């Protein structure tokens, strides 16, 4: 990696298991790199102040807001987006969102799922309070959060509603 400051560089990232090399301007946000350059449009933009969490992805395993990270900062990193969550089958978390009516318009849902899946990875059966803390950085304007919290708690209880 060059230590001469440059305004554009080749970035190498592994996104949802696929290794990608791409030239990207230093000023491009990770979220725009994912959406516009890689066509991974499941990651959404809901604000311009790093407040809403719709753009949440896993960067080397931890949830971050991809609108507050430059694509060049992600060079060498492993990234998981909502498209990378499920294989052929939906994950128990995705199923639980479906069963608990934890989404309406679905715009915040990818970010919610990324935050919630990160929580479940380190805390398989979180309490209601722990779930609320983990999702506090994700805004939803449709549901009032109640069903979302229930859906995540339920996964911890083995999917029981």
């Amino acid at each position, binding site marked *: *990696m060059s230590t001469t400051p440059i*305004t554009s560089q080749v970035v190498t990232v592994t996104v949802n298991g696929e290794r990608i090399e791409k030239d990207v301007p230093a000023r491009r*946000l990770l979220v725009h790199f994912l959406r516009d350059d890689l066509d991974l449009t499941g990651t959404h933009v809901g604000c311009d102040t790093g407040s809403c969490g719709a753009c949440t992805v896993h960067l080397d395993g*931890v949830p971050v807001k991809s609108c507050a990270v430059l694509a060049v900062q992600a060079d060498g990193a492993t990234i998981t987006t909502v498209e990378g969550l499920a294989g052929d089958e939906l994950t128990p978390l995705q199923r639980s969102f479906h069963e608990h009516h934890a989404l309406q318009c679905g715009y915040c849902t990818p970010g919610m799922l990324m935050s919630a899946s990160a929580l479940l990875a380190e805390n398989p059966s979180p309490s209601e309070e722990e779930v609320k803390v983990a999702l506090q950085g994700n805004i939803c304007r449709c549901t009032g959060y109640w069903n979302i919290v229930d859906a995540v708690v339920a996964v911890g209880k083995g999917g029981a509603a």
Partner: protein
Amino acid sequence: MTCHEVGCDRIGAMLLREVAYARPATVEEAVSLLSEHDGARALAGGQTLVNVMKQRAASPDVLVDLAKLDELKTISVSGTTLEIGAMATLTSIIGSAEVEVSRPILAEVAATVADVQVRNRGTLGGNVCLNDPTNHFPPLLVALGATMTIRSSQGERSVPADEFFIGVFETAVREGDLLTRISIPAAGKGTGDGMAGVTLGAHGTYVANAAASVTNGAWRVALGCVAAVPVRASAVEEALGADVDDASVRAAVAGLGATLDPPFDVHASADYRRSLAETSVVRAVLQAAERAER
């Protein structure tokens, strides 16, 4: 009278101006990059800086990304001092055994900053260097009597928290400087820390806050959100004794608000901030006192 206005697009859109980027491998390299390039700025977690750049309220020409500088991410105790690297994330502070043992208030407060995603990226160094007047750590570190270590091409220097904060988004870390370490005295017996305030919703932006710390009857109290920099409540510190109760604290705090000239905004009038400042001090002090007894 006409106002000739260039570039009326002054309204937020999350698109940065062109900027150059480098990710040095060593602190020396970082310092030289910062000093060699005009308008160069250190990029830590970026949780404030990148958002400020999106608004184009600031546009550094060069970003020096500190991500590779692992030596700035360590948290350790040497003697009676807790040493936190400027690049330690808030999440790592929350999970640190050293912090837990020697100054738990730091983890307690870190856990209430913004949200999980921000805490995963955001660093202690970034939080203090940006010095947004509503940030959590500037008043806390002043109350804890922290010391900042700054590297520059001229070498290393230490600045006490009391002198570190200079203005909004402005600190003793000047162009060409790099904050490397924050040193906090480890809490011994008879030490208690507290922080209280009012936020915009749970874990939201502070409207007003106060941090208090007592060690064997000696108090340090700092206010946040009432000026561009944290404000020491010296009169209160002197008025407070070794053992305090609700009444004595209120007596000590009475009149504090009148000495302040706080900003007003959509969330609080200056008077409301004066009142919140007093209430926050009372609560922070009582919390600290209670913990000192344990």
